């Protein structure tokens, strides 16, 4: 309960002024006592929260609307004395600064923070929103310095773990606004696909329509808990996708992704927002030098590199006047290049550098401050690669490259381009998806990539913009009607189709085009499909140090070839070489699968350092196959692949016949066949970055070069496996792999490239295990044989012919209540079947490994402890060398909860 202010106002005033009579005094005292008593009783009933909790009243209204101060009639008395508006202290604590305070009876109340439940927030119209806390705030205001602000308060991470979702729905209509630091987000595989997107995603879905909007300030998306990040120069991303279901079978989609530099001191509508703006440092001074570099796009052949016939520059000033460099005697400084008749040649590693230096004494063109556009014209031919830089952009950026590997000047042309600093990258496209229309399924995606550049001039607010268009499309179509099936894919991705953008450096507003840490990717490289992109890029600078696609089928982030390795207890021996474990784990050479790029690696195990586009830039071609099922177990496929590299005269042509079988043999076991024979002409290098584990290491990423082993080659791969499962306790597995590379090319050319005319791998693995329980004791005898006969495609690598056998025997028996003792012995017979032992090979030897281990399971302080104590003795006796003996003793305790 409250008293009217007018009543309270009169209380002190009535005791001042003229002399008071005793009667009046006693009335006042009585009234005061009554008042105190009343206040006392009312305070005792309920806590007074004051105006902060929304009970302020004026004119009889409860309001938090931003209306500004009004007229207070109570303060209209014409007195000279300073009049204080009774605000917080009076309203919440009843305290008048001039009134005597006595807490004898009414005990003192401590100050209570008025912001315990947050602040008041209003929308853009001034509507009161709520009383609470700001969690996320992103706004950009132009024109003003530091106009781009992103704030993620500490509550964004501490309360919401860096993810906030606002959603609503009614009937079939749903939408959600998701703001997070690590959002899995995909529009289409060719335009935008990231496992970690730091920004905002706004999704809409109905029965027929779907839409998504993604937005982020990608140069500095904000750090939770840090001060609001206010920037003048920044890079923004905006993208979206709309999908419409057309009829029962088709779905049409449109995609748009744009990343652009922004400079908040400019007016928003001073240009096309999607074409971006030059940042402050980029537009700080006029361009005074433009450099063009011409080099050989295929330097490995040493001839037919870029040919420069003529060059010129055209300058456009702000008055619209056009000045041609050659007409004013402004000639470039040309460095490098071999002089041929009529042209300069950049063959092999040679480079031609053309510098237009506007500070040169021969320059008599328009004033630098008046140049709004500079156009470079080059007459070039052959296998050129053209890059451009300037004093405002020191890193050379690619501009054009020749198609194919031309050496005879037949592609001579005039290339004219406007110089500019990249300001935006945009992809717009559409998709058409057909599902089961007359048995056909197809997916078509067409994208246009536009890369915008602008010419700096500090005197201008609008700059000359130039854009380049690159195309990318793909089509997948399939039909299946038992027993027949067919599939075709075609694609064409321009060499300079780009799904990245170099972002502004938050520290200085510059853009460093040589720094990959400042490169934001629309489509990430994430070959192992985990939550971490493989490479180190803007937004994910730490990268992924362990990438083994396909080798981690149990998703524990540990290579399945070294399953017993972890950070706390590193294991430096791959499982297929480790005693006892090697019974179950076979070498990767014995794996099988499809290798469509013919680099010697099964495609599903490949890791590269490229964006995960379905088809790589700079390639076009098709692949088509058809086939039929022969019953439920057999399948035969015949197909052809034609892939060409656009910028070079390289191709990957293959015709293939594949037969697969998976046969259950009278419930005794399973027989599997994979037969792949193909004729290949492959000159496209597909280098990889593979996880390898060299001896005595924990493994790491290594560059693996494509040996280009199939220039004109028959490749046969046969893999057979048979597992017997019928007899209980008995496990019998057999694998055979035979791979042959038969070269058809010129033997001299093969010899020059160190390629064997016939390279092969023949390997057989047989293993038997029988588990017998005798009382409480378990006996496990095992035998494994691994035979390998190999001639690598690289002629410099020695042939191998080896036979390795392991005989082991394990016995396990319980000991007391929760302990067990396990003992094993493994005898290895390694036969080097080549004489003499080839370089890098191992001599024949006999090895014996004996181990004993006590395992204890117990509970301790709520944890379940597993304790192992053991000893291992290994001995190897080589045929021509000394005896090696190795021992290992160990005690280890592992604590867990289950």
């Amino acid at each position, binding site marked *: 309960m409250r008293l009217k202010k007018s009543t309270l106002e009169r209380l002190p005033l009535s005791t001042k002024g003229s002399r008071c009579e005793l009667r009046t005094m006693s009335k006042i005292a009585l009234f005061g006592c009554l008042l105190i008593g009343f206040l006392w009783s009312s305070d005792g009933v309920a806590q007074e929260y004051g105006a902060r909790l929304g009970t302020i009243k004026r004119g009889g209204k409860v309001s938090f609307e931003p209306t500004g101060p009004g007229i207070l009639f109570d303060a209209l008395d014409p007195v000279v004395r300073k009049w204080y508006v009774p605000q917080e202290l009076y309203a919440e604590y009843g305290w008048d600064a001039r009134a005597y305070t006595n807490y004898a009876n009414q005990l003192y109340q401590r100050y209570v923070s008025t912001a315990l439940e947050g602040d008041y927030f209003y929308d853009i119209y001034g509507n009161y929103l709520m009383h609470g806390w700001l969690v996320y705030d992103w706004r950009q205001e132009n024109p003003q310095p530091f106009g781009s602000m992103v704030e993620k308060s500490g509550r964004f991470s501490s309360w919401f773990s860096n993810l906030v979702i606002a959603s609503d729905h009614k009937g079939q209509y749903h939408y959600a606004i998701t703001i997070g630091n690590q959002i899995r987000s995909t529009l289409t595989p060719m335009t935008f696909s990231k496992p970690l997107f730091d920004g905002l995603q706004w999704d809409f879905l109905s029965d027929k329509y779907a839409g998504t909007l993604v937005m982020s300030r990608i140069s500095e998306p904000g750090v939770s808990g840090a001060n609001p990040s206010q920037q003048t120069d920044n890079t923004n991303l905006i993208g979206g996708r709309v999908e419409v279901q057309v009829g029962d079978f088709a779905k049409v989609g449109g995609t748009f992704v744009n990343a652009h530099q922004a400079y908040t001191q400019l007016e928003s509508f001073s240009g096309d927002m999607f074409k971006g703006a030059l940042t402050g440092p980029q537009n700080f001074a006029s361009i005074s030098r433009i450099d063009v570099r011409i080099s050989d796009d295929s330097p490995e052949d*040493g001839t*037919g590199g870029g*040919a420069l*016939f*003529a060059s010129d520059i055209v300058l456009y000033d702000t008055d619209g006047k056009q000045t041609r460099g*050659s*007409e*004013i*005697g402004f000639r470039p*400084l*040309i*460095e*490098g*290049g*071999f*002089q*041929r*008749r*009529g*042209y300069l040649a950049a063959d*092999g*590693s*040679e480079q031609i550098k053309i510098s237009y*230096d506007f500070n*040169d*004494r021969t320059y008599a063109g328009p004033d630098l401050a008046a140049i709004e556009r500079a156009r470079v014209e080059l*007459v070039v*031919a052959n296998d050129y690669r053209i890059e451009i830089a300037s004093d405002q952009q020191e890193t050379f950026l690619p501009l054009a490259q020749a*198609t*194919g*590997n*031309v*050496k*005879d*000047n*037949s*592609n*001579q*042309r*005039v290339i004219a381009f406007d110089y500019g600093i990249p300001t935006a990258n945009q992809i717009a496209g559409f998709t058409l998806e057909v599902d089961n229309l007359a048995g056909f399924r197809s997916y078509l995606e067409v994208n246009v990539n536009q890369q915008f550049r602008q010419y700096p001039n500090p005197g201008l607010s609008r700059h000359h913009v130039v854009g380049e268009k690159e195309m990318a499309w793909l089509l997948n179509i399939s039909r299946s009607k038992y027993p027949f099936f067919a599939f075709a894919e075609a694609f064409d991705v321009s060499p300079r189709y780009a799904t990245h953008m170099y972002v502004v450096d938050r520290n200085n507003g510059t853009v460093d085009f040589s720094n*990959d*840490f400042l490169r934001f990717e629309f489509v990430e490289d994430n070959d192992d499909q985990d939550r971490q992109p493989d*490479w*180190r*890029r803007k937004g994910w600078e730490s*990268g992924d*140090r362990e990438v083994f696609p396909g080798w981690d089928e149990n998703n524990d982030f540990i290579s399945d070839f070294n399953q017993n390795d972890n950070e706390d207890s590193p294991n*430096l021996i791959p499982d297929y070489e480790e005693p006892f474990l090697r019974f179950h784990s076979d070498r990767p050479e014995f794996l099988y699968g499809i290798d469509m790029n013919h680099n010697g690696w099964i495609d599903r195990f490949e890791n590269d*350092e490229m964006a995960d586009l379905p088809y790589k830039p700079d390639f076009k071609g098709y692949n088509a196959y058809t086939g039929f099922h022969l019953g439920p177990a057999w399948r035969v496929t015949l197909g052809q692949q034609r892939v060409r590299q656009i910028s070079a*005269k390289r191709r990957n042509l293959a015709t293939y016949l594949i037969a697969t079988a998976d046969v259950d043999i009278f419930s005794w076991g399973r027989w599997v066949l994979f037969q792949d024979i193909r004729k290949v002409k492959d000159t496209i290098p597909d280098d990889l*970055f593979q996880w390898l584990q*060299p001896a*005595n*290491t*924990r493994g*790491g*990423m*290594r*560059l693996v070069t494509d040996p280009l082993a199939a220039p004109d080659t028959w490749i046969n791969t046969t893999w057979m496996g048979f597992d017997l499962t019928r007899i209980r306790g008995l496990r019998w597995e057999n694998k055979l792999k035979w791979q042959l590379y038969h070269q058809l090319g010129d033997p001299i050319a093969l010899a020059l490239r160190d390629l064997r005319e016939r390279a092969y791998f023949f390997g057989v693995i047989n293993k038997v295990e029988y588990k017998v329980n005798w009382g409480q004791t378990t006996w496990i005898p095992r035998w494994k044989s691994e035979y390998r006969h190999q001639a690598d495609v690289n002629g410099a690598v020695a042939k191998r012919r080896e036979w390795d056998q392991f005989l082991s025997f394990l016995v396990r028996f319980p000991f007391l209540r929760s302990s067990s003792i396990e003992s094993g012995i493994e005898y290895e017979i390694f036969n080097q079947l080549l004489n003499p032992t080839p370089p890098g090979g191992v001599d024949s030897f006999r090895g014996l490994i004996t181990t004993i281990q006590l395992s204890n399971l117990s509970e301790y302080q709520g944890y379940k402890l597993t304790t192992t104590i053991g000893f291992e003795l290994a001995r190897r006796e080589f045929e021509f060398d000394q005896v090696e003996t190795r021992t290992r003793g160990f005690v280890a305790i592992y604590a867990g909860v289950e």
Partner: protein
Amino acid sequence: MVRSVIVSWVFCCVAFCASLVDAQNVRTFTLGLGGRAWTGGGDSIDPEILVRDSAIGRVDTTNTPEEAIEFLHRPGWISPRFFNPEENIASRVLLDRGSITAPNSLLISSAVRRLQLLGTVNGDHNVAFERKPTLSNPEANARGILVILDFGMPVGIHRVRFYPRNTVVPTPNAPFQDDFMRGYEVWINDRQTNTAQNAPDELVARDEKNESPIVDVEIPPQYVRLVKVRSLSSTPFEIDEVEVYGTGYLSEARYVTDLIDLGDRATIGRVRWTENTVGQPAFSSVGVRVRTGLDDTPVVYQRKGVGEFGDPFVIEIDGEEYHQLDRLSKGPLIEDEENWSPWKSAENGQLSTAPGPRRYVQFRLDFAGRIFDTRQIGRLQFDYLQPPIADTLRAEVFPRLAEAEKAATFNYAVLLKSTGPVRGYDRLEIDTNIQVAAIRNMRLNGEPIDFEVIENESDRFTLSFPLIAGDGDLLEFTFDLPIFRFGSTFSGRAYNSRWPTVPQILEPGNAVSFGPEDIDELASLAVAIPQAQVGKLVGQIVWSTDVLTPNGDGINDELEVFFNLLQLTLPTPVSLEIYDLAGRKVHTVFSDEHRIGPVIKRWDGMGEDGRPLLPGSYIWVMRIRADAFEEVHAGTIAIVY
């Protein structure tokens, strides 16, 4: 009598000296085998190479930056630096681009750390890098401590060895043989560590329980830029020396000659060198570049200052003065583009395209290769003439735009300029695409002079005329030929027939005004074709007849096809095939390779079997199979008896 003897003697002496001057032979400058030693760089003025590794840059005055050149492995020859397998090259980290660091050795002053690290690679066995408790740092952690040797460039290595003091070399005053690294890892990388760009470190050795004071790790020979030694044990340790044993050749190396002072301006002839390949030629190369100058400082030194009114300025000073300036007064160093040409690539036995005549010349040799594949250079030579043929021989051709294929007449002018004695020229060699139809109307300073066409080939013609040596002498002549390519350049060389081995390249530029349409700034030796014609490989195809009558009456028994191949720089396959109206190929008239220019072929109407084709209409198809695309032309022809 005596007087006359003296006069005659003096006259003879003067005549002899004059004849000596006049008959002075072409001089040859030789660096390397049979000439000046490579180690001396040409025994001239120290080179000045601008290195932009800071805001103001610095000048390198050595002939072998980074000591990357080998002089001893093959006496008299140079190559990228070769390392014997027994050679410890760890001290190379002390060169400009190299470094040795211990980035996580904190709690130790940087000066002390730097001295200790220096002591681990300089052969000083009394100084070691220590990671041991001290009074000021009693809990120095040894685990994880890294020592990184950065060679600044890839070097071939095959072995890494490190040890504490008093092990390999007795140091009784420092008996720390037991303070070896009890657990270690050795990592290498051929680039700067950058996992973002496929450059992760590679672990080559690891021993958690090392018991050997001397750690000796063999590595397969390979290029390495970084060698990292990491301690895996918390036991304190020290490293007396880290030894890195090299092998093979450096992957890249540069040799820069002195600024060769020829004494006066000179016409420089063909540059030639002897080159040898080690290993596979495909994996190595050497690039020779040359530049010429008017003075002995290719770098502009500048001093910064502040003017009377506080306005900053930069003025040019000489190098000596520059090196005495304090750091704040040194202005940015820039290339002297006014007096020195840019580096021009040279080819063995060819004339350099660097401008001349000049007094100063400098060469740069850039080697590239692999660990056991490289190049060696034995001798670098060039001839030069002093006085030069001319100070300037500026030439231009007009018109500079002509329609392809069509016969055109070109005017050619050469203007001689001299600032002192010159030898002059009496022969010109001009490059063309095809043989010139006619050369006429030669004039010197507007007056007709006699001339002789010495040769007229498909790629050049040579003219001979009386010696021209006067300052301002203008030689003009006219020739006729069609052009077939954008950028047909009539470059040329002037010879003095007494010293024919040292020609002087004609410098494109304004020599004379050929009329109001001749804009001085555009003057050059190149002729363009209209842009619309760029991109076509064949011009007009002309048939002598549309109707072939192979009946032996002598009329239209044969037809002749004429066309011009355009644009191409290499011989290209061209074929002409005859098809019947059903699309069957009935004859291939020709299928062979042709160069740019006119082609004439005949056909007598015979088919593949040597018999006349049946009367009727046929389709001819001409294909030009160029690298970039196949250009196809087709038409019809009739055979009538």
